[in-house]
């Protein structure tokens, strides 16, 4: 019987699934991903985590609970750093411990440190990870190569304009890449942490809602890494959060780009890094005067409220087109 490895559909799932999944499958393991977020999953997460923990992490608790009884081992890498001299957020550093002490009756956790703070290659991480399942160094190396290849292909698809779910469908379900939706609608950049904007339940279908209104949607992940970093380098000091780098770099790029008409910033309630990066973004937006919407999500967000604000935002963008250049609404 093949061993079942559980991967929660939460946190950096939207960045790294191909990397993890291909690696495990190449080693002959079965990968089980938690089901898409539902009310039940979120409620379970809320009940098992502390009150002051942020929504994405509480949701991740829910996804762990969804997998708990269906897998043999749970894969919760401790994501210390995904780029040189950068971290993600303290909660990513402590997540495995939070889960271990918050949920009882868990299958064994596999939580090696993923740490590129001082090195460039993630290979040692994969060796440590693979050793849990096999002693065969060659098999681990080959699985690593395939995983890196799949990840590169995934990033390529994202940069072509696809969103994570579409790109994953291309990679794993053989769906055709499809044409980039053209049309003459306004373009909006949605800037936010991947686990907030790409989870349809949490974002209340923000991306598809915009698309249905005829809006061409862009996100930070549609931009190449080098471009994002070039923009973020304009900050007075190197920003030590990788996700913040991406969000600031993308926001600043889209602010200058004439074919993006507005920016929506999505943050979860009481998000620590966002309180500072969001502030820097909104100050820059105010200087440049593009339509800007700041959406804060938490477990109490109601769909009607979000829809109203979204409609008002789209109306505002539409009206600006009739204004003489240089004037604001």
């Amino acid at each position, binding site marked *: 019987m093949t061993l079942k490895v559980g991967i929660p559909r939460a946190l950096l799932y939207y960045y790294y699934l191909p990397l993890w999944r291909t690696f495990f499958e190449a080693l002959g393991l079965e990968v089980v991903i938690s089901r898409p977020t539902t009310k039940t999953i979120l409620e379970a997460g809320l009940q098992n985590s502390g009150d002051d923990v942020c929504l994405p992490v509480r949701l991740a608790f829910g996804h762990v609970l969804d997998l708990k009884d269906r897998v043999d081992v749970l894969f919760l890498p401790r994501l210390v750093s995904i780029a040189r001299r950068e971290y993600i957020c*303290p*909660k990513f550093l*402590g997540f495995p*411990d*939070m889960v271990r*002490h918050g949920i009882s009756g868990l299958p064994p956790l596999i939580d090696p440190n993923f740490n590129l703070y001082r090195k460039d290659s993630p290979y040692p991480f994969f060796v440590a990870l693979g050793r849990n399942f096999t002693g065969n160094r060659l098999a681990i190396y080959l699985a690593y190569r395939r995983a890196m290849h799949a990840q590169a292909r995934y990033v390529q698809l994202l940069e072509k304009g696809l969103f994570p779910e579409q790109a994953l469908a291309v990679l794993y379900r053989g769906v055709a890449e499809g044409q980039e939706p053209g049309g003459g609608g306004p373009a909006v950049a949605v800037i936010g942490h991947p686990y907030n904007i790409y989870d349809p339940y949490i974002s209340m279908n923000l991306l598809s809602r915009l698309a249905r209104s005829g809006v061409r949607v862009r996100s930070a992940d549609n931009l190449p890494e080098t471009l994002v970093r070039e923009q973020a380098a304009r*900050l007075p000091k190197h920003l*030590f959060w990788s996700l913040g780098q991406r969000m600031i770099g993308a926001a600043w790029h889209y602010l200058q780009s004439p074919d993006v008409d507005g920016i929506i910033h999505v943050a979860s309630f009481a998000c*620590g890094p966002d309180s500072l990066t969001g*502030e820097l973004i909104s100050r820059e937006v105010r200087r440049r005067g593009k339509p800007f919407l700041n959406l804060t999500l938490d477990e109490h967000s109601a769909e009607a409220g979000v829809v109203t604000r979204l409609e008002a935002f789209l109306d505002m963008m539409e009206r600006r087109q009739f204004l003489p250049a240089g004037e604001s609404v």
Partner: protein
Amino acid sequence: MKVTFPHMGHMWICLAAMLEYLGVEVVVPPPTSKRTLTLGARHAPEFACLPLKLNLGNFMEASELGADTILMAGGCGPCRFGYYAQVEYAILEDLGYKYRLVVMEPPQRHVGELLSKIKYITGHSSWWEVVRGIRFGYQKARMVDELERRAHYLRPREIHRGSTDKAFKRALREIIAVKHPRDLPQAGERVRRIMAGVAIRPRPVLRVGIVGEIFTLLEPFANYDLERRLGYLGVQADRSIYLSEWINDHLFLGLVRGLRSRKEACRAAPPYLNHFVGGHGQETVGSTVMYARQGYDGVIQLLPFTCMPEIVAHSVLPGLSTGLGIPTLTITVDEQSGEAGLMTRLEAFIDLLARKKGVV
């Protein structure tokens, strides 16, 4: 150049001593008050943590007194503090304040970056003088910490309510008044005599450790004077980190021997928290374990609302508390906190500890 810096408890005493010794003109911001908080909270991001808001308020009030240069510390994450200075500066700039910003960053590439900033602030002083200045500031920090420890001991035992606080204030003035390192020993003597004058009676007291985020631990305005309140409730408090220990850990890289160090606390944190999480998260967990081992009656964790490292620590505290049998109370502070609510929780917690120990 008139240099100012944010408040963090009694830190201003050592910073001002050091800078003034080196001939730098210093503007100490007015003591942190409701007004500071209102000013800061009005202009700071909503979800920024309380220290940022208070820092900002300090800078705005210091500017009214003529300060034109901000001296701040930096950091390389993942705690937000490392980016405070830049965000605070952006806010002040947009508000029209004319400040120069000097951030002491931990040297990443070259120690020269840090040295040149020190030179910029201290001007003509020789390096030897700079070292003496730092040493002078550090000695004052040691004295203030000693004084605070003494006050923690005396408060629950004093015969006349408030006599410790009165003596504490007088003693603090003695320390502040010292302008040259050679006068420190005599001042120390006077401080000891003042504190010895507090009349006490022996009685059973509870011992409670206070852990958490450094700013809320050290700044009485942020923690509603927690240590004093505990003292009045018959509790001898101990803080998991004192200013001089922090200076030793972060500026002197632990060179001064014989002080408690963060390494010890971090070693005690596993298996509850197996990795550093930025800020003082791992120290919070480790110190709680150490207080439990030392037979303390309870532990109070302090954190500003949205503080990421402390939230991680908070998540593992319940398991630790049951595992080691030490009651814990977590107090989150922000601009919305109310004094009455805090007192009610504190009294309930102390009642629980007293009943458990049988000293009601």
